[in-house]
């Protein structure tokens, strides 16, 4: 009697079992690890024609300031090899309009809403955070530390550990009720130093990375392409750099990480998790593939199922390093 062997039961069961995509990121509990990144998802409702917000782990709003800002003069963007530069100049509706017009529209959106916050001075950060603290329907705030400090000659908050401690500590006190994500700038010699300062000052979660400083030149015009001269580089081009920074911070600092930088597929996202992220944000991909974020969630689940990973959160920080190399070698 010949018959085909059935697959061993355990494997069969494993392949059918639903994958648990939920992740805990410090105080935040997310349905799945995929959030849309600040500045690439508007105030959320812009994407309603393309996806269900409830299918996302969450999203982060465009950066909010105390008052509305119209931003930089155009041209504000420029495409580069596998990336893009932007110098939007942090245009936004301001925190009041956000609370009055944008947030109420998200009341039943079914996902985690995080407000991205910036200021040109410590007090501006504090003003925005204080207004947001306790707002109904808001699940957390993310501090954008890439903003230049106009009181300190324009140096970005995020490159100076004392400034980081100052602004993070002040915001922590101003918005005690909200999970506090501190978003690090990559334009620094050692990002772990910034991460440590954020932790000391009370961050619940770290998110990294923001854009890399870059420039494009209009050769015939002998001019910068961007009216602002300098812009921030994002997109697949920066993925290896961002992945390294996530790895480094994960090895050095004991805080949950939301990783980002060039993620365009579920595989990219899962690589960030293996390198130490508890969740990820997707930014530039939303521009060239507006349904990418939710498709990524589905692809993530499919990948986990075929690989026998039952809880996606089990992947975080599972990178196996060569023996004797806890932080990775350093000379390339």
């Amino acid at each position: 009697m010949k018959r085909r062997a059935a697959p061993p039961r355990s494997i069969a069961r494993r392949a059918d079992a639903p994958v648990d995509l939920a992740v805990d990121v410090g105080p935040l509990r997310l349905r799945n690890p995929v959030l849309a990144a600040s500045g690439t998802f508007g105030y959320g409702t812009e994407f309603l024609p393309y996806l269900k917000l409830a299918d996302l782990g969450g999203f982060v709003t465009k950066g909010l300031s105390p008052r509305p800002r119209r931003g930089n003069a155009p041209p504000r963007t420029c495409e580069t090899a596998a990336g893009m530069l932007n110098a939007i100049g942090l245009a936004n509706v301001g925190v009041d309009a956000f609370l009055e017009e944008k947030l109420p529209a998200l009341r039943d959106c079914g996902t985690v809403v995080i407000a991205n916050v910036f200021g040109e001075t410590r007090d501006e950060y504090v003003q925005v955070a204080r207004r947001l603290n306790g707002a109904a329907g808001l699940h957390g705030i993310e501090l954008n530390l890439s903003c230049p400090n106009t009181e300190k000659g324009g140096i970005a908050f995020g490159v100076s550990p004392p400034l980081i401690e100052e602004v993070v500590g002040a915001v922590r006190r101003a918005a005690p009720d909200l999970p506090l994500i501190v978003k690090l700038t990559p334009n620094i010699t050692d990002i772990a130093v910034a991460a440590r300062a954020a932790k000391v000052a009370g961050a619940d979660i770290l998110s990294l990375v923001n854009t890399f400083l870059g420039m494009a030149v209009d050769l015939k015009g002998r001019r910068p392409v961007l009216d602002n001269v300098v812009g921030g580089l994002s997109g697949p081009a920066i993925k290896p750099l961002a992945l390294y920074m996530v790895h480094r911070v994960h090895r050095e600092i004991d805080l949950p990480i939301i990783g980002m930088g060039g993620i365009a597929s579920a595989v990219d996202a899962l690589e960030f998790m293996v390198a130490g992220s508890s969740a990820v944000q997707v930014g530039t991909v939303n521009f060239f593939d507006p349904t990418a974020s939710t498709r990524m969630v589905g692809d993530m689940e499919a990948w986990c199922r075929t690989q026998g990973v039952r809880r996606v959160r089990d992947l975080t920080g599972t990178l196996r390093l060569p023996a004797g190399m806890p932080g990775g070698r350093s000379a390339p």
Partner: protein
Amino acid sequence: MPFDVPARVLRHEALNPEHFLITLEAPRLARAARPGQFVMLQVREGHDPLLRRPMSICRVPPGGRTVQILYKVVGEGTRYLSHQPAGARLKMLGPLGNGFALPERAPRQTARRVGTRRPILVAGGIGVAVFPFLAETLQRLGRRPLLLFGARAHRDLAGLQLFRARRIPLRLATEDGSAGARGFVTRLLEPLLREKPRNGGVELYVCGPTPMMRAVGGLAVDAGVPCQLALESQMPCGIGVCLGCVVRCAPQVGEPVYRRVCTEGPIFPAAEVAW
């Protein structure tokens, strides 16, 4: 309501070495489209180039299941696009943007009545791509559009057959004099603006390079003639979230503001744009 679809290339014609007319299958998108709207079109797979390209909806051919795009190869992205064979699938998002504000349907008997403005479509170079759909729609609304079309040289006057097939009258100008009048398209427009308004005068629909739109918009504002400009701008997303595509506008009241060309536009009243 826009749709993001993997659209199949049904036809892809080279009108001349630089200009192409591509026909893409996208029924829901085609049905929703209005003149002056655009799509964000993937030019090939992968991350080079990273971003989709904004392209006007040139025509919705009869049947309403396809859209046509008329484009010029100006850089790598459009060059890659031109290599796409029939049968390929390209992601296409649209229809996007506000589209032209259209006149009301003219009841047959009043088509030439006083108070009905004659639509003048003013095209510069590949800016003409936005007009076949508009012209056909205006005809259906009982109007008699006239196309003024200026370009560098004869070979840049692409897509004329799309207008001739619908018997839309056209006047041409080229900078090098190789076809039509020698000079800019404003040479064709100025006499029309000076003419004593008959039958309600004219209204302008304009698309072309920025200096041309600036000039035409200025003439229209000075002449007190309604004028809609179809603006271009760098558009990473096309859906209003990146804030990259803004143009400086001077609203009737208040400070100049930056408006998103992809969402508040791409069609703006000439009087509003404060370049």
